[in-house]
């Protein structure tokens, strides 16, 4: 990849910004189509199969329908905030794709950013502001409740996610996302070296992106449509799109941080130089992203319900947060004791996998949901 275009920063920026935006949108088509067909199989349905081969263009048709529909702004809504909320939700999700290394340190917008993990944490939280804005500006109680639930979820689950990311950073010795992939290339995938961190990150991230069954921003059965109740037309389409793009981004993040990113174990993993290696790396990454996305869809389809909001908050603060702290503690000790050695991955796996099982068993016994019926007279 030593072409002049990529040595020129602005050329690099232009190419990869376009690639991030259009790549994300194209991926959306593929994943959304697959998601809908896959989801239908879980529900003993066929799914959309009329428009295009295997119903592939159904997503496009739906998007077009959304775009052509009337964009209704409620009379009592805050028109400015109501208008910019979808954009506030949209842009961080697209911006997050900048950090992903697709095939090497140069394939991607800024994959070698030295504060990569901090960038992820910071930008992904901006979505919450957009959701709250949408909920507040709609002048609808359902929207407001949805926005409040979304922000409460994001604030609570930010902690376990960040702490799980610290574990990754500690083990890799860098915050750069590409550095983390390279560390996994050397040591082994972090899903095996810190399974507890992986699980915490996975659950926390699902909560942060309001992925069903943790879709507290939407809560269809309770809040009608949550934050997007008062949205229609293209703006509603953007909210829907963001929901799926966040899912895809989460799959990218999990694949990159815990499943070795573009690297692959064995002799296949030694990527050749030049364009061939780049394409192979992107292929490996996409394969992993696809598998993670399948797991996400699987969880979405088979969970019989979501927790109540107080149980859900309790799960973050009483369940995931202490586990995440313990996870960092264990990993830090390991890094101090065995760090840098050739036997470090073996030790990490030997300690962390049993520790993960034991801690989860222990917490499932200790953890109590609490909540329950409130004495209403005490409130009044």
């Amino acid at each position, binding site marked *: 990849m030593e072409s002049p275009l990529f040595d020129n920063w602005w050329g690099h920026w232009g190419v990869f910004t376009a690639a991030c935006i259009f790549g994300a949108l194209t991926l959306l088509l593929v994943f959304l189509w697959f998601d809908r067909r896959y989801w239908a199989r879980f529900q003993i349905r066929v799914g959309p199969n009329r428009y295009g081969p295997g119903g592939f263009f159904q997503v496009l048709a739906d998007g077009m329908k959304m775009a052509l529909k009337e964009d209704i702004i409620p009379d009592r809504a805050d028109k400015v905030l109501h208008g910019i909320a979808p954009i506030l939700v949209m842009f961080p999700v697209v911006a997050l794709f900048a950090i992903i290394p697709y095939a090497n340190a140069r394939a991607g917008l800024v994959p070698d950013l030295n504060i990569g993990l901090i960038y992820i944490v910071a930008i992904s939280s901006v979505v919450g502001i957009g959701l709250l804005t949408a909920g507040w500006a709609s002048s609808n109680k359902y929207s407001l409740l949805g926005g409040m639930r979304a922000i409460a979820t994001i604030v609570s689950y930010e902690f376990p996610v960040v702490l799980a990311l610290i574990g990754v950073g500690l083990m890799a010795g860098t915050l750069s996302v590409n550095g983390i992939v390279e560390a996994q290339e050397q040591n082994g995938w972090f899903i095996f070296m810190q399974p507890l961190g992986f699980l915490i990150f996975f659950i926390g991230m699902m909560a942060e992106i309001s992925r069903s069954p943790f879709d507290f921003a939407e809560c269809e059965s*309770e809040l009608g449509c949550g934050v997007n109740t008062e949205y229609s037309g293209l703006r509603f389409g953007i909210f829907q799109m963001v929901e799926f793009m966040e899912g895809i981004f989460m799959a990218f993040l999990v694949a990159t941080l815990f499943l070795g990113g573009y690297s692959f174990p064995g002799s296949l993993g030694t990527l050749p130089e030049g364009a061939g290696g780049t394409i192979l790396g992107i292929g490996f990454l996409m394969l992993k992203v696809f598998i993670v996305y399948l797991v996400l869809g699987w969880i979405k389809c088979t*969970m*019989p319900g979501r927790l109540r909001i107080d149980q859900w908050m309790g799960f973050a603060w009483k369940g995931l947060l202490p586990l995440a702290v313990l996870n960092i503690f264990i990993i830090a000790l390991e890094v101090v004791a065995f760090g840098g050695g050739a036997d470090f991955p073996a030790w990490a796996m030997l300690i962390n996998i049993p520790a993960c099982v034991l801690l989860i068993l222990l917490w499932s016994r200790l953890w109590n949901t609490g909540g329950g019926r409130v004495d209403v007279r005490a*409130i009044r």
Partner: protein
Amino acid sequence: MKSLEEREEVIELETDPYVLNIGPHHPSTHGVFRMRVLFDGEVAVDVEPMLGYLHRGIEKLAETRTYTQAIPLTDRLDYLASMTNNVAYCMTAEKLAGIKVPERAEYIRVILSELMRVSSHIMALGFLMNDLGSLFTPLFYAAREREKLLDLFEMVSGQRLLYNYMRIGGVSQDVPERFVKKAQQFVDEFPGYLDEIDNLLTENEVFRMRAEGVGALSAEDAINYSCSGPVLRACGVNRDIRRDDPYSIYDRFDFDVVTGENGDVYDRYRVRLEEIRQSVRIVKQALRDLPGGEVQTKHAHFLRPPVGEAFSRIEAPKGELGFYLVSDNSIAPYRFHVRPPTLLNLSPLRDMIVGWKLADAILILGSIDIVLGEIDR
């Protein structure tokens, strides 16, 4: 100038309760039920149900029709269990006119009523899961089972939702030959599918966390509110009209009355699940004993029952369904009154919901298994 302490009292954090209007076009109100709930944050403080969005004046309409013409109107009461509505109405009219029903028709009525109960309960479970927040997956599996039942009903009546199959003095036509075979096949296969649903959902951690203890109703309250059906039995009250006041030929069948303990959402779910198994048991026995013969007693085309009144009740899927008819010896009932189970099951709604959170309120409403066609009439 106030002292700091006085000002502290003024700016003490106060929360304003707010009214949230749930329904009539909310996704989880099972039709057009509407309730205005006063919330303090997420906690429900007071509930005000508002009915009447599906009022069609069925009782009044029935008084302008002949006794037979009123049967299709009863279909539209509890439209998820039309057969049992037909049965309840026809039984009352037969009681009023003193008509005896042939043996075979009684068996057909029992078979179809119990299949209807299976269909109604399995949909109740599916919708309950939807209210819990699942993305339709359990509902589709429930609907798959209901689909087979609808095929059976279509076989006997030609309709899939509003059957209009029962007649005063029997049923409109004999069941086709293949119905018995298909019904037998269904009751043989169905328990396996039900076990599948049972294994997946009953012990599920998320479901138990959400449902156990939620919306608990004491047995005393349930009786005082005149609840019936699964809602009453979940509270531990052992009462089932099929056994306590046997109508039709229910005294010939062997089945258990299922009761819960706590009267919460989880117990209502379990009672429904177990009742489905008992219904399948009854259908098996009835199919085994199904006699031949007539299915319809001959009577005048325009029925003119003697002056008087009659009330009879059955154990419908959702509870005790009663019809009250007054005759003035004309071709139309003088008074036509329905005792709907779900309206009375809905009456303790406030007691159940107050103190629970928004998500629980939806779940509790779902666990009562309301059908608005019956509540508003």
